[in-house]
């Protein structure tokens, strides 16, 4: 079943999540919104990276932070806590 959420990150931008899950693991995810992320192309890679990731706050934050660091991604208006919250709010 497709789950959705819309979350405005405090002092940041709006994030919209569409995801499918199985056994509390992400099987599909789409991250939309009016935030900034350079390079922009990294978003597709991040969405792939999150497949099979457990819907768990700590695991998600670590995974997103590591992805941003490894891929030299600069974010503005979005952070790992805010994105994680948006993902966990999807229902």
């Amino acid at each position, binding site marked *: 079943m497709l789950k959705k959420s819309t979350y405005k990150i405090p*002092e940041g931008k709006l994030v919209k999540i569409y995801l499918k899950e199985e056994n509390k693991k992400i099987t599909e995810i789409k991250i*939309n*919104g009016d935030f900034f*992320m*350079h390079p922009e192309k990294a*978003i597709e890679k991040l969405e792939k990276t999150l497949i099979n990731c457990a819907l768990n706050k700590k695991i998600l934050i670590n995974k997103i932070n590591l992805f941003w660091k490894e891929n030299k991604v*600069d974010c*503005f208006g979005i952070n790992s806590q805010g994105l994680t919250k948006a993902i966990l709010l999807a229902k």
Partner: protein
Amino acid sequence: MKKIRLLKMGHKSAFDNMSIDESILLHSQKNNQSTLRFYGWKPTAISIGYFQNPLEEIDIDSCKNQNIDLIRRVTGGGAVFHDQEVTYSLISPIENKFIPLDIKESYYKISQGIIKGLEVFGIQAKFVPLNDIIANNKKISGNAQTRKKGILLQHGTILLDVDVDKMFTILKVPQEKLKDKIIKNVKERVTGINKLTGKEVSFDEAQTALIKGFEKALNLNYTIGSLTPSEIKLALELKKKKYTTHQWNYKR
């Protein structure tokens, strides 16, 4: 003083405008040139941020019926209705003294060009993080930035006037039953140069003021220029292979 090429390009289509911005950006990666470009949009267009889904944000049929072009930007940020405005793009290598490395600081610094430009009309404006400029407590300018291989591209709009009712024939609202309330709210929160001055300010007058504003705020030394044949060629390619395609505009 920072040497910079100044391009006054008048009104073009959304597809030309975004292709030209990216072509200049890609050339700047090779020649390290800085460019400040001013332009308008004809026909009226709506641009969406890189990460937005047009089907969520925009009434596509209404766009088509009104001949309003839809385009995805290379920058993040929100949907922007491009009608009565002056748009700028600043494309430059990121150099600490000219453009700060810190993203927030760079938005602040570039915004000072717009704020100084608005002062020409007696408008007192200020930067509001993350990426807006307000005057009389209302938004008059929105800005969006990307950085690619050491080159910054920031483009933004400065409103001359805004037809909020027309804008909301295209922009979708989260809850249709609250549409009237949302429109009223936006009318109270957005303004333009014409409203603030009580005069009809032309595109050219606003452009001239902004050129002065950027010159002062960023300590620029302009060379009035034009696109090179190579920039034009690449822009035409980008227009054909990227910005006019369904694959790009509906990619997310």
